[in-house]
């Protein structure tokens, strides 16, 4: 077990490093950099000023040198300054992280709270109208673009109630009720898709397990129907759900980007897009590292959980 863990950790570290290199290089291949943006948006070309700024930001060094400079600084905890704002990158990113994390957790909570029970119900009432209805509902969730759903929610809110959630972030300790209300709709919007997935996976693995011999045996033994379902079937059905949460996480981040944009939440996901458009390299690097670490750790956790939950899996 520990050898396995050690190997996975090493792999995780390697993955993070590789991702950082890929993003670093891609960013610098991208035509146009911050110097172009800053100068040309005002339409003046003063060559010496441009060169001075480029030199200051290390943009005129070879890519490898830039990478190593950045990497050493990063490892020491120095996250550099935002090219765009001139402020320390960490100062800009830090307040945004809790917002995205909270939205992600709420979205996941929504998806589990909605997906799991509906999946169970669907499985235990297979081929009834209830089942069909729920299947359509979940398929719809997988068929709708996330931003579309968000926009529809906002338009419906404004047309029906003349109200939309606050456009400025309200911290929970300032006004808990308003804060929750602000996060409710984005969480629903971002969680719908994952809810649909969890619903489907739960349903299909429940169905499978319900057919299994040992459930029939359990029933034959006279155990109450419900306890059979919940104790044996559900536990085994949880396995793929855990896997889905893991793989979905990476996808969820995409959903967060779009949801934060539509609902105007100042999180890191949305900020990443802006930083890329502004070629704000230090900020993009840090955000990508952050995302990479989270994703890799989540995958790792999922793999470990998988190994513990299902003794039939062998990691040769």
């Amino acid at each position, binding site marked *: 077990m520990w050898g396995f863990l050690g190997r996975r950790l090493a792999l995780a570290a390697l993955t993070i490093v590789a991702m950082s290199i890929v993003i670093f290089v891609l960013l610098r291949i991208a035509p*146009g950099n911050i110097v172009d943006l800053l100068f040309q948006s005002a339409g003046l070309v003063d060559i010496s000023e441009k060169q001075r700024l480029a030199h200051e930001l290390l943009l005129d060094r070879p890519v490898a040198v830039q990478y190593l400079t950045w990497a050493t600084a990063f490892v020491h905890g120095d996250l550099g300054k935002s090219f765009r704002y001139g402020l320390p990158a960490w100062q800009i990113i830090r307040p945004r992280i809790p917002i995205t994390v909270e939205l992600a957790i709420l979205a996941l909570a929504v998806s589990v709270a909605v997906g799991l029970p509906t999946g169970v119900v669907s499985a235990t009432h297979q081929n009834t109208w209830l089942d069909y209805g729920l299947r359509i509902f979940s398929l719809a969730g997988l068929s709708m673009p996330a931003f579309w759903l968000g926009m529809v929610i906002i338009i419906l809110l404004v047309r029906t109630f003349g109200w939309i959630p606050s456009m400025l972030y309200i911290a929970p300790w300032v006004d808990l009720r308003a804060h929750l209300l602000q996060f409710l709709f984005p969480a629903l919007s971002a969680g719908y898709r994952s809810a649909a997935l969890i619903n489907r996976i739960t349903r299909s693995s429940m169905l499978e397990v319900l057919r299994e011999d040992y459930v029939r045996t359990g029933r034959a033994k006279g155990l109450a129907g419900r306890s059979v379902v919940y104790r044996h079937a559900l536990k085994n059905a949880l396995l793929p759900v855990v896997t889905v949460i893991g793989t979905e996480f990476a996808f969820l981040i995409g959903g967060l980007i779009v949801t934060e944009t539509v609902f105007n939440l100042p999180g890191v996901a949305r900020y990443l897009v802006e930083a890329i*458009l502004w070629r704000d390299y230090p900020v993009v690097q840090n955000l990508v590292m952050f995302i990479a670490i989270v994703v890799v750790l989540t995958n790792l956790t999922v793999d470990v959980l998988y190994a513990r939950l299902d003794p039939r899996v062998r990691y040769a």
Partner: protein
Amino acid sequence: MTNRSPVGVWLGGMALLTLTAASAWGASPTPKSGGVLNAMHREDPPSLSIHEEATVSVNWGVMPCYSNLVLFNPLRGQESPATIIGELAEKWAWRDDGKTLVFTLRKGVRWHDGQPFSSKDVKYTFDVVRGAPGAPALRLNPRKVWYAQIQAIDTPDPDTVVFRLKRPQPALLMLLASGYSPVYPAHIPAAELRTRCVGTGPFKLKEYRPGELIEFVRNPDYFIKGRPYLDGIRFIIIKERGTRIAALQAGRLDVTMPQEGTRNAAEQLKKAIPSMVVTEVSQSINDNLLMNFKRPPFTDPRVRRALSLAIDRRAYVQAVRQGGAVVGASMLPRPWGVWGLVPDDLAGLPGSGDPAKQKAEARQLLSEAGFGPGHAMRLVVSTRAIAQYIDMATFVVDQLKQIGVEATLEQVESAVWFAKLTRGEYELGANLTGVSVDDPDSNFYENYVCGSPRNYSQYCNPDVDRMIDEQSQMVDQVKRRRFVAEIQKKLELDGARPILGWSNDYYAMWPYVKNLVPHQSVYNYGRFQEVWLDR
């Protein structure tokens, strides 16, 4: 021609009525103090330093902090030399046949950090901006050319500033009244003003949260007693267009942002909230084509003329701007601008005549230049990846196809766009150009003289340069107007930067917002010193 919707006609009528009514502010009720205004903003300003930027995103969002020497009267929607009022300057006068401009400054004004204001701040600001020898340089200086005629700035005493010019430039006063011409503090390095704001304006910067909010709070020591009425202003940054409109509709925002008021959004808002006040004004931003003069085939004047002929200006107004634009040449057309060409002059220019005939003429010119059915011209039309630009470029591509040009569209991000323009790495560009002040000096020097950094098409005609210098010195405005009309015609015929049209803004705000009068230029009314909330 599409049938004008009843709402549209109604809007137009209301607009004129509102603009007139708003201008006669003496008739409105007594202003109340208090309240915080939630204003719409679409993006972060590139920096907080007005002198270093050239986008409405910085004026709208930072103007409340600063004061100018002079400014256009916020309560008069139609800007002109007659609507210029003093801010830091109490009186001013031209001397020496228009070669000297003397300002008498207000006394007892303080900067937001408590330091006293004096003439040395004015001298510092405009020495820096004009690039005077020995003065510290700005990192970016888009309007340096505005002040090129200033020989020297004298400060005989703390309350007097004298601008001495190399030759008369009556336009200088208009340029100083623009939202782009605040006075900076001499005791703070310009670089710091990119991230903080120290001005003498009616509001102090309370907080700037990048990507979220620019918040201002009332300046209790403002040099005009009794102003501002508002306790504060919050510019709430919302990137997503649909969400912005919904926010305004839901009351999360009180006013729109200039340049963001599309006709559709306005009609939509009006239907949902009949009491919403919508004002139709010009943005003072034109849609134009950039033809790269340094690249064949644009070196051939026949080709340039053909391409300009091909684009039906009226169809453009209808399709691309849904009727919310006006056809014109390089100066803002009437009724919004006083230098606009009269209809007779306009009719003679490419793109304004009978579309079928003009397209036929275009095809003829192209074949004379060597392009025809077997040997079609291939073109790449480049544009920014923003909805307004893309729509215009799509229309242009389609019109060019109709004269047999194989045009393809290339959309690029802003970072790449600016690089392309200044390096001349494009063929045809679909572009938007803002003109801050309705004066030829503001427009021509930036965009049309040889070698100007923002003359992206690299058009260079020494005759036109001479004409531009000549009009700049004319004191007789009637004579000047006629001369400028000749320049505009010449520019269009040369294909310097074919103008497709000037977009309108449909500025929407809730009825309880008083004394916010949209101007016919989006760049100059963001001070909020007279605005009050009636609730």
